[in-house]
């Protein structure tokens, strides 16, 4: 009998995943978003195969700020590097930052929001004041504060998994500043979830607070988290870009944000170098749009109320 149960649940999961995927993929937005994302992921996975090694000033081949041509499909930058090459290589960092920062902020935000909402009272009051504070704090101020901390922790000049400290700074900053938003959403949802009878039932069944939070509340937060996750991704790419804009990027590993800020510093806008500004910008736009589309579709899929309306 135990075997049959395991078989059952295995089959159930598979069935649930299948119906979920079926519904999810039924949305045009989800298809489009996934398509874009897969495209960028592939790009990020093998930049060297697609456009050759990353160009720096030392192996740049083109003219300074040459407009798009057959040789340089997206033109060149102010040191003569091929913009297409830069954009393709930038995908990896930008996507990593966006995804990891999103994970950080979702984990922190969900934990804080759920704890505050579930325990209430003074835990709630102080956690939410803390949240308010991070809500108020401008991300770049935080970036300046924690840069030395991260450098200290990582050791000077070290790399972790091939990423340099400045990337970690950006990751941590985005993670830290964007969780407040998630925490608010999660908390309000938790407030209503914890009043559900099934939580009471779990308590009568002898479950601990931790297991109630993990087994009962968390799964019901999934639609919220999925929907907001998409917004956080868009926000993360955005913040990464503006941090680079303030000069906190890594000049040897250009992300799309760094490229935008380089373009700005080189005076691309007033010199009319639209390709230099446009290429990374369109990439940022496309990726965050595809996440928003996927998040929208996830929200629609998970939200039974939305499903009824055609």
């Amino acid at each position: 009998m135990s075997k049959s149960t395991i078989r059952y649940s295995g089959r159930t999961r598979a069935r649930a995943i299948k119906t979920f995927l079926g519904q999810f993929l039924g949305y045009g937005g989800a298809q489009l978003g996934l398509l874009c994302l897969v495209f960028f992921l592939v790009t990020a996975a093998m930049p060297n195969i697609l456009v050759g090694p990353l160009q720096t000033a030392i192996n740049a081949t083109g003219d300074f700020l040459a407009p798009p041509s057959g040789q340089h499909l997206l033109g060149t930058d102010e040191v003569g590097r091929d913009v297409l090459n830069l954009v393709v290589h930038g995908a990896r960092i930008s996507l990593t930052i966006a995804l990891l920062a999103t994970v950080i902020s979702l984990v922190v935000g969900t934990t804080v929001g759920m704890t505050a909402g579930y325990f209430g009272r003074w835990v709630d009051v102080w956690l939410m004041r803390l949240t308010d504070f991070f809500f108020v704090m401008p991300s770049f101020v935080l970036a300046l504060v924690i840069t030395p901390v991260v450098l200290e922790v990582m050791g000077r000049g070290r790399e972790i998994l091939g990423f340099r400290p400045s990337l970690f700074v950006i990751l941590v900053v985005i993670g830290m500043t964007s969780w407040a938003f998630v925490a608010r959403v999660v908390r309000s949802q938790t407030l209503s979830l914890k009043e559900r009878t099934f939580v009471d039932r779990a308590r009568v069944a002898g479950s601990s607070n931790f297991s109630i939070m993990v087994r009962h509340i968390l799964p019901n937060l999934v639609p919220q988290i999925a929907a907001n996750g998409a917004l956080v991704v868009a926000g993360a790419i955005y913040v990464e870009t503006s941090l680079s804009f303030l000069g906190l990027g890594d000049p040897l590993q250009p992300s799309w944000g760094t490229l935008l800020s380089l373009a700005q510093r080189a005076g691309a806008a007033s010199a009319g170098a639209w390709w230099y500004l446009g290429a990374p910008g369109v990439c940022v736009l496309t990726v965050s749009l595809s996440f928003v589309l996927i998040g929208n579709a996830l929200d629609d899929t998970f939200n039974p109320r939305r499903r009824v309306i055609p």
Partner: protein
Amino acid sequence: MSRRIGRILLRAVITLVMVAILNFGLFRVIPGDPASLLLGGARTSVTDEQIEAQRQNWGLDRPLFPDQALDYLSATLQGDLGYSFKFRGRHVADLILERLPATIVLVGLAQFIAILCGVMLGVYAGWRRGGAVDHAATGVSLALYSTPSFWLGMLLVVIFSTALGWLPGYGAYSPGANVGSLDLALDYLRHLALPVTAVALGLIGQYVVVARAAMSDVVTEDYMVTARAKGLTGGQMLMRHAFRNAMLPVVTLITLNLGYVVAGAITVEAVFAWPGIGGLTVEALNARDYPVLQGIFLLLGVSIVMANLIADLAYGLLDPRVRQ
């Protein structure tokens, strides 16, 4: 009702005190000594003694806690934000007040436009969910929502200023324009056009998304069926019954964003060289001008807390259920 207001006020006060305390600490953790930084920026030789003298002058040599912290708190309570390090001789409050109008005009106007257009579009899209307007509005607004607004700003400059030359791309006025001339207002408006567009376009997306979601929730509510059963026309149902209910989440967003009116759109202001709080923030940040940064941050904190306060109170007005 008064209980609710009391509770809301208490929360606001707690947040403000926390903002003030952390405000003090945070800016002192940032590496870089303002004295050496500023003096080092000069093209003259600076001796260590000079730096030390400057540190003394600014009180930076005293222990962070409690001396500097208490000084800061007591002065802040008295409304004295101190003098700027960088712009020597200027009261921080003066500096901020000087820049505030430009930011409020820019972001305020952009918010106004975005709220107007975004809410209208979003409400209509949610009302006719699945329709042509819905698809178009949602698509465009999602795209706008995902666009970094400073990039949008740069594009606008490249297109409308550099390439077409229709509108000025930078600053708030034409250099050398005569003060007091009637054209000045027109000139100001022309300069305002592009930055306002950039900020507003970025915001519209948010409003459309939220208003649409709220509206499509409201449409499924049972009282909308009641309204239909009563024989109301579509317009009557929308205006009399759906709109006010759909406004609840939108009001939250509006007030949250209103808090940011003060902070300005830092990156957009940088792109357009708009003389607002955003520019001041960047300058103060580079110079480690603690008093100014603290002032801006305090202002931001206060305005966000106030905005939350307004949100809570407005909620009470819109939704009688939370008035208890």
